[in-house]
């Protein structure tokens, strides 16, 4: 059965100018992109600090429609608040830092390797992270392998508190490269 060709506005309404802006944006991404497989060498270590502000937590929680009040260090009308959770103040959703690993393992000083797909993670949530903490995310490329003719890159990850050194989170994760 023939399917109609996909269109830029096939899943959401757009005017002609929105379609043009979208195509220009995607062309700009694709024109400078390498494959992730080629970007990474085994042994590569990348590390960045992330200040987990109340606004960042709200951005994440809203984007997965998770309205647990434990995560609220920011509230409309009041703005920044201490929040409440079983640990005292507001805490970070348990897998938020796992998402931001992406912004470390994909070297942010180089164009993003579009077309890559996250396929697996084995995550240890070791301690609750208070909203407002600054953490250091460190990734180490530990393997590149081919499985069923697909190319994967594996990383080990740690997330530590910059001020106290508390180890909050560890992870092993795989990315499928183009």
């Amino acid at each position, binding site marked *: 059965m023939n399917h109609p060709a996909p269109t830029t506005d096939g899943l959401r309404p757009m005017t002609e100018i929105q379609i043009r802006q979208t195509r220009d944006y995607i062309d700009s991404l694709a024109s400078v992109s390498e494959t992730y497989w080629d970007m990474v060498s085994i042994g590569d270590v990348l590390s960045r600090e992330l200040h987990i502000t109340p606004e960042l937590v709200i951005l994440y929680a809203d984007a997965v429609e998770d309205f*647990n009040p434990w995560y609220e260090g920011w509230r409309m009308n009041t703005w920044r608040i201490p929040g409440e959770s079983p640990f005292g103040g507001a805490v970070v959703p348990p897998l938020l830092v796992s998402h931001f690993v992406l912004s470390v393992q994909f070297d942010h000083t180089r164009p993003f390797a579009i077309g890559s797909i996250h396929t697996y993670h084995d995550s240890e949530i070791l301690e609750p992270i208070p909203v407002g903490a600054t953490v250091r995310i460190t990734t180490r490329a530990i393997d590149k392998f081919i499985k069923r003719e697909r190319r994967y890159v594996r990383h080990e990850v740690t997330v530590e508190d910059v001020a106290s050194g508390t180890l909050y989170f560890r992870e092993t994760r795989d990315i499928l490269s183009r």
Partner: protein
Amino acid sequence: MTTTASADTPATAYRITPDTPVGYRLMGVKKKAAIQLMGSRLWGRFNPNHWDPVYAASTGLQAPIQTGEMSSAYIAEMCVNHFGADFFRNARVVCKYVASTLANEVITTHGVVREKAPKGRGYRFTVDIWADNEAGEKKTVGWIEVDVGV
């Protein structure tokens, strides 16, 4: 939209305790793979596989696919509903994205207690978890481990 508790049932009624038996079924959460969220700056804006039908087709995908981490977040939400504060300390989450979640699919998370191993004054629970679509096709599979009452 969450489905963990009705308006007149406190969410704490679903909390897993040391007495919870093997075989207990967690109540999941249900979410729609909304293209507007999939293409947000937070999730997939920098990777058009996650929001552009034309680019996704050029890489062999049937439609834009949700980032796997969104499914993991849904599973984590289910786990916090059931394990509360215990899920934030010395827990483990293993997820494998076995099939793509396509735009507009409705995803439901699931969990079944597979094992509880004595630990300290309580137990370390192992729970099989997965997320599937309306047709029951699994998209994410894995397991979690959480200390309860330890």
